[in-house]
Structures are given as structure tokens and as C-alpha cells.
């Protein structure tokens, strides 16, 4: 198909439950694409030579490659292609803020709608799940190193997935009785069905990851004990933010005021929305006020609506454009009838003599000079107040760092907000202890937590198996086996001639050569070639049409039959001559 024809295809709108119907149930809002819709949407992708979308993705999903596979009708292969970079595609297809990541960069977005990358990711991940074609877990030779992961949220699951594939013995400790972290306690069923999360955890279990539930690390075991008593070689902390921020206004401890964490945990994890079939109760309200403008605020408001509220208000200090929530969530909330009280902030909560809330007083704001972050600062308007009658208030203004682990690990450096200090790869001040996700950055997104998990997995591997002569494991081959003979750069391609040295014939039985770009520690595969038989000393010519010659450096990786990395060489600008 020619680009001109692709340009003519119109965007496949995601079919959803009608707002008035879904506002009364907890079933998922979008139905997902049909095969026809997925094909149509995939065909809108121009397969750009320089795929900008990939740059927008924190874990560098090979977007054009997986969309090409959809175009060919290879849905399962498309799902597996994503899984090379992202262990949770069914989750990310649903909860990633695509509009500020991959889809924002899509060239088709310059004129009209960008390609529905998130919708397509969701489609292939669901297709794989329902097909029952679960790929056999990779058989990996164990490397005899043990890693403990604290927290089974998105970053912990990603770290676990990456490390198990490299032969580590991986154990995930979770404080709750179910795995998934924020994916199960925070995000409601109508946005992310819990069966999706359960499926992903099951896959990780199948590939050998051990999950230990009901374990609060910091209490039942300290980090030091994980090393000294349980014999772990490294520990990854991915415990999330997990300490709710309150407003510190009068009346905040009255009955009927919840933190969003409590409200959502009761509803999602403890299944209070199915009360009394489940035992955990949840206060319901006729007039519900949610304070905040992020995804958590939207989730709380829409949960309240589904639990029979008449009026649900979102009170947010800034303007609509400044709301941090995902665009789709704000849109869905609005469609369902959530009422927005923008540029307003609560000042007092009033209650009756029994201690139950009755109303909330808010002050109106206007936008003033931009603050440090560049956003216009909201300024209170003196004397301009309004009151809302309410019987349920949910505070969703963010989370601070939970101190449980840092409190019990004094040698772990934290900043003034209590977040763990790390380097770019998640290394903390304590040797062989790594951290990532909200406990490091403060509240952020699922996908950025996954990115952090991946970087830490790389750091753990680098630190436990430093690439020097000290490597004792027999399957590890020193990296000096690749000899670069010639490099030529043409306008549309890069030509390389390479030679393999110092390896036995047996080891070269079917090797895979991969050439990638490296950005912020993420590799984007640009070229891949399998060579059935490569004799030592034999030169090979590799013509890489998709290489971007503006890149400063690129990575050549040689994998053996089992995907085990045999050699890595970074080719920098100065050798390209």
C-alpha cells in the first residue's frame, strides 16, 4: 500500500459502552477493536524511516515493527514483538498516557489524528490472551544469583520479567494478598479489568518468578536480612509512593472524608463495590466531592458515580488544560456526567453534631504568573467562596514517599521529601540495592515506573556480572569476539563488515546479529539478521537500510540460538570512517 493511500484511511474510533449505561456498571468502558478495525487502523501507519513514536515511549516499544505485523495479519507475532520490550502490553495499552508519549510524536498527528498506537497495543495483547497461544517460557540457563523485588507493581513486575529471562532466581515480595500493586488497588475494574493483571502475573509465575504475598518488607524482614539471612545478591525496591497527602484544612478527619488511596483500595482490592457479597464496607454518597485533577481523581469520581451518587463534583485548583489526568479519562468522566469545579480549592469541611460531613467550602482561584514548572500559578480570589452540600469527600491530591522501608534501612539515602536517591540506573547509596518507580520519582505513570524497572534490571545484571575477565560463568563469552573490519555510511544505509574471532565453531551455530540505537539506556532494534552458520574468521557484510546515520553511536549485539547475548559492541562516531 502506498503512503498516499494510507493517508486516506480514517481513524478507527474506539467503540465504548454508552455513557449512561456504563455509569451504572463496573464493566470495562472501551470494548476494544475488532480485527477489521485493527487492520484499518494499522494501515494508517506510514512505517516512518525515523519512527518518532518510539522516541516517545519510555520503554522503546518497537512500534512500527509491531504495527507492520498487524498489517500482515500476524496478530500473535505483533504481541510477541511488543513483549520484547514491554512485559505488560495489555496494561499499557489501557493506562499509558499515549497522547503525551508515542502518539504525540506520530507524524499523522500533525494533520488529524495520530495512529491509535495504544488501541492497537491493547488489541494485540488481548488477542494473544484470548487465543490461548501463550509462548513457552524461554528456557534460560540459571545463573545462580538471587534477586528480591519489593513490591509487585508495574516497576517490580518489569524488573522481575527482565531478570528471570537472564537466568536469575527472582522472588517478588508483596504486602497485599494479591499482586499488581497500583494496578489492582488503584485502577478500577472499568479501566483495567483485574483478569488482565492476573493473567500477566500468571505468565511471570509460569516463567519462574516466585511471588510471596502478605509480606511487608521493613517489618517482617529488613533489607539487610534479605541479604544476610535469605542470601539474596541484589534487592530492588519498587514500593510506590504510598503515603496519602491530606489538605490540612479544618474538618478533614470527619466521618465521610477518605483519601483516594483508601477509597480506591476498599473498592478495587477489597472489592467493596460488590458489598455485601464482599465484607469490606465503603461509605457511599449522594453528593460526592473529589478533590484533585489527576487520573486518581477521575477514577475516584467515576467509582462514586457507579455506586449510585447523584452528583459527583471534581474540585481542582487549576484549569482544565492543566489537569494531569489522561485525556481519555477526563473525556470519559465528562461524558458520564461528572461535574467539574475548576479553579477552586477547599478551605473547610463542615459536619453535624454526630461528626458526619455536611458541606465543603471552597475558594475560587484565577490564573496568575507562570510558576517554576511553567504552568500558570493559580491565585486565590479574595472573598470569593462557594459551598457544596456533600456526604462524601475523596481527597486525591497525591502521595508522598512511604517511609516504611527507608525508616528501617538507615543507610539508604533519601531526599528531603523522603524519596530514595538513585543514579540513572536505579542504584541507591546502598550496595546492590536498587530502586525505581514512584518511591524514587514521586507519583508518576505506570509506564515510567516500568522504564525504571527495566533500567534497574540492566544495572543489577551489570553489577552482578561485570563485563570483565572476572566472569566465571561458562556461557558468558568475552565481548572481544566481534571485529569491525569496515564501516561505510551511505545516505540511506550503513554498511558494516564484521568478523568473528576467538570463538569455536559450535558456538557459532546460528547466530543473530542485531543493530540498535541507544537512547537513554534503551535499545531500539533497527536491524536483525540470522546467520545459520558462521565460521570463525569469516567476514560478513551487513547492510542496514534502517540505520539512522545521524545517530552518534549504535550497538551491535550478537545472540546465540537461545537469545543469550554473546557480544556487545558500541560503535561510536569516531570509528565510522
Amino acid at each position, binding site marked *: 500500500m502506498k503512503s498516499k493511500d494510507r493517508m486516506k484511511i480514517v481513524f478507527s474510533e474506539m467503540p465504548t459502552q454508552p455513557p449512561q449505561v456504563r455509569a451504572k456498571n463496573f464493566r470495562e468502558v472501551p470494548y476494544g477493536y475488532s480485527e477489521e478495525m485493527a487492520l484499518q487502523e494499522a494501515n494508517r501507519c506510514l512505517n516512518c524511516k525515523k519512527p518518532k513514536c518510539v522516541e516517545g515511549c519510555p520503554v522503546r516499544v518497537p512500534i512500527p515493527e509491531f504495527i507492520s505485523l498487524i498489517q500482515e495479519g500476524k496478530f500473535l507475532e505483533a504481541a510477541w514483538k511488543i513483549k520484547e520490550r514491554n512485559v505488560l502490553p495489555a496494561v499499557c495499552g489501557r493506562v499509558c498516557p499515549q497522547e503525551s508519549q508515542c502518539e504525540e510524536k506520530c507524524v499523522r498527528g500533525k494533520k488529524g489524528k495520530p495512529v491509535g498506537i495504544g488501541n492497537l497495543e491493547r488489541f494485540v495483547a488481548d488477542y494473544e490472551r484470548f487465543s490461548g497461544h501463550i509462548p513457552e517460557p524461554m528456557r534460560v540457563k540459571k545463573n545462580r544469583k538471587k534477586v528480591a523485588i519489593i513490591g509487585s507493581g508495574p516497576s517490580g513486575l518489569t524488573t522481575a520479567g527482565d531478570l528471570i529471562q537472564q537466568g536469575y532466581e527472582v522472588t517478588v515480595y508483596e504486602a497485599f494478598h494479591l499482586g499488581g500493586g497500583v494496578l489492582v488497588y488503584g485502577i478500577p475494574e472499568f479501566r483495567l479489568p483485574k483478569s488482565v493483571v492476573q493473567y500477566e502475573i500468571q505468565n511471570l509465575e509460569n516463567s519462574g518468578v516466585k511471588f510471596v504475598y502478605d*509480606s511487608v518488607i521493613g*517489618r517482617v524482614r529488613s533489607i539487610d536480612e534479605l541479604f544476610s539471612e535469605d542470601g539474596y545478591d541484589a534487592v530492588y525496591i519498587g514500593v510506590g509512593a504510598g503515603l*496519602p497527602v*491530606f489538605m490540612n484544612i479544618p474538618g478533614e*478527619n470527619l466521618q465521610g472524608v477518605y483519601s483516594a488511596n483508601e477509597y480506591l483500595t476498599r473498592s478495587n482490592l477489597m472489592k467493596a463495590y460488590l458489598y*455485601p457479597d464482599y*465484607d*469490606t464496607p465503603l*461509605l457511599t454518597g449522594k453528593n460526592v466531592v473529589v478533590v484533585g485533577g489527576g487520573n486518581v481523581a477521575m477514577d475516584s469520581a467515576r467509582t462514586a458515580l457507579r455506586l449510585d451518587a447523584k452528583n459527583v463534583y471534581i474540585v481542582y485548583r487549576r484549569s482544565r488544560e492543566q489537569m494531569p489526568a489522561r485525556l481519555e479519562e477526563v473525556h470519559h468522566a465528562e461524558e458520564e456526567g461528572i461535574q467539574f469545579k475548576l479553579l477552586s480549592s477547599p478551605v473547610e469541611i463542615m459536619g453535624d453534631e454526630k461528626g458526619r460531613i455536611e458541606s465543603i467550602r471552597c475558594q475560587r482561584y484565577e490564573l496568575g504568573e507562570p510558576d517554576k514548572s511553567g504552568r500558570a500559578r493559580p491565585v486565590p480570589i479574595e472573598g470569593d467562596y462557594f459551598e457544596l452540600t456533600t456526604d462524601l469527600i475523596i481527597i486525591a491530591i497525591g502521595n508522598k514517599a512511604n*517511609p516504611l522501608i527507608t525508616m528501617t534501612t538507615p543507610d539508604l539515602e533519601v531526599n528531603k521529601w523522603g524519596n530514595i536517591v538513585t543514579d540513572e540506573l536505579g542504584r541507591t547509596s546502598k550496595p546492590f540495592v536498587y530502586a525505581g518507580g514512584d518511591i524514587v520519582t514521586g507519583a508518576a505513570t505506570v509506564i515510567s515506573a516500568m522504564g525504571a524497572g527495566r533500567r534497574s534490571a540492566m544495572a543489577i545484571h551489570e553489577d552482578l556480572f561485570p563485563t570483565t575477565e572476572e566472569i566465571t560463568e561458562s556461557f558468558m563469552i568475552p565481548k572481544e569476539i566481534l571485529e569491525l573490519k569496515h564501516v561505510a555510511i551511505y545516505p540511506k544505509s550503513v554498511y558494516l563488515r564484521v568478523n568473528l574471532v576467538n570463538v569455536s565453531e559450535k558456538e557459532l551455530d546460528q547466530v543473530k546479529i542485531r543493530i540498535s540505537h541507544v537512547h537513554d539506556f534503551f535499545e531500539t532494534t533497527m536491524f536483525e539478521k540470522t546467520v545459520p552458520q558462521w565460521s570463525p574468521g569469516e567476514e560478513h557484510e551487513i547492510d542496514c537500510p534502517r540505520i539512522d546515520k545521524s545517530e552518534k553511536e549504535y550497538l551491535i549485539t550478537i545472540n546465540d540460538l537461545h537469545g543469550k547475548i554473546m557480544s556487545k559492541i558500541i560503535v561510536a562516531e569516531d570509528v565510522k570512517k
Partner: protein
Amino acid sequence: MSKFEILKKEEFVPNFYKLDISVPTIARKAKAGQFILVMVDERSEKIPLTLIDWDKEKGTISFIVQELGLSTSKMAFMEEGDSFYSIVGPLGEPAYLENFGTVVVSGGCYGIGATYPIAKRLKELGNHVITIIEAKNENLLYYEEEFKTVSDEVILVTTDGSKGERGHIYDVLEHMIESQQRQIDHIKVIGCNVMMSKVSKLTKEKGAIPTYATVITIMVDGTGMCGSCRLSYDGKTKFACVDGPEFNAHKIDWEEIIHVRNTSYISEETLGLQNFSPECRSLAKYQEKSKEEETS
């Protein structure tokens, strides 16, 4: 032995059960004053229960359950050999324990059991331990013999005077303080919030004797994540699950705890009990009434 299995169950006074459970990980780390969060089955609520004993070697923990709400009623129906769905712990900070001199350790109702490990540890630390335990009547008093082994004196109190002194813990304390027979250096109190608040008021007025109360609130996760257990302490918001459960009683805003925080779900709890079994319906009515009485 399966995970979280009940090894022993004993109803030692009506509606009060002592359960011994196999949880080696918790038994290994538990300290006096800490608690656990328990789910009976996968549909249950998570409820906090104070540990009353543990055995590192056998890998067992013990707690006392008063059949009162839905979860505790479910527990009352469990048998030896049954298993809990989830037990998380040990949670909370251990109690503040050192050699204070003379210590009064007081517990009422379900707090009697929770007082035991604290008295035991205080005795080990060399304190002169005076234990006061209170119940409505003689039939509901328990652990008298156990307390004798870890206390220098044990004083029993019943509301109706059917055993020991007549009245409440604070009546006994008031008498002790006013008679000046012995200087009291430190007081521990565990029980219902109304009783603890009265003890706190008394000891604050009578020479500000250091008094520490254990506040077990409604909780969900026990890790400080939800804020359900928040209370006002010395003008600041504290979380009972991570900052407590033991606090300096004189700094706690008792009014707020009694009238606001802990009465949030009375109607829901009653409905839950009615759904659970017909036998529980009468209990539900009784409970609703007694909670109303407590708060009024």
C-alpha cells in the same frame, strides 16, 4: 501444615477465643505491642488484631478474638485445622518499653489479652509490674493466672462487682494515686477508647503520670498507605498503623477518635452480620445498641 493454619482454638470465656496459628515469619520478628491484619477468607475485610503471644521455635503466634463484628464472627465459626486466607505482620511500632520503675499495666475487655506481652516484657526489664484487668462481670474476666506469672500484683475489677473491685480501671487508678501508697512511674492502658480516654484524663490531671495507650483503629493496609487509621496527635495527623499503635495518651485527641473516626461503618457492619448467618442477627442488633451506648 498449611499456611496460616489454626493449631489450637480455645473459647475461654463466652465469645472470647484464643487462636494459635502457624506463621513462622511473624513469630520470628514479633515484638510486644505489635499487631497483625487478618482476612478470614478471600471475601473478608482486613481487620487488625493485637498479638498476645508468639513462639519463635514453634513458629506460632496467638491472638484473642472477641466475637463482635462480621469477621470475628466468622473466626468464631472456624475450627482447628482451618486456615486463614491472609495474615500480614508484624505491623506497627513495638511498644515503648524500658525499666521505668513501677509500672501499671491495665487492660479492659479485648484489651486484656493485648496487655499480656507488654506486662511480660516490662517484668523481664526489671519493672515492678502492677496489672489491672477489667471486665463487665466475673464470667468475662480472663488470663488472671497468666498475669500472676508476669506481675508483682494483679488487681481484678468488674463493673458489677462480681469479682475483685467494683467499678472501672480508672476508679482503681484514682484510688491508687490518691492514697499515695506507691509512686507510679509509667502507665500502659489498652481497651475500648472511652475507657482509655478516661484513664488519660485522670492521669493528666493527677500529676501528669506518663501514660501510653494502644489505639487500634479501623485499618485497611497497615502500611500507612490509606490513612484510614489517622488520628490527631499533638496537633498533627498521625497514622496508628505506622506511627503507633501505642501513643502518649495525653497528646491524643480522644474526642475525635470516640465520636468521629471509629463509628463510620456501624450500619454497614450490621448489614454484613445479618447477611452472614441468622444466628448473627441478634448479635448484630446487640452490637448496634452497645456501640450507640458507647458513643452517647
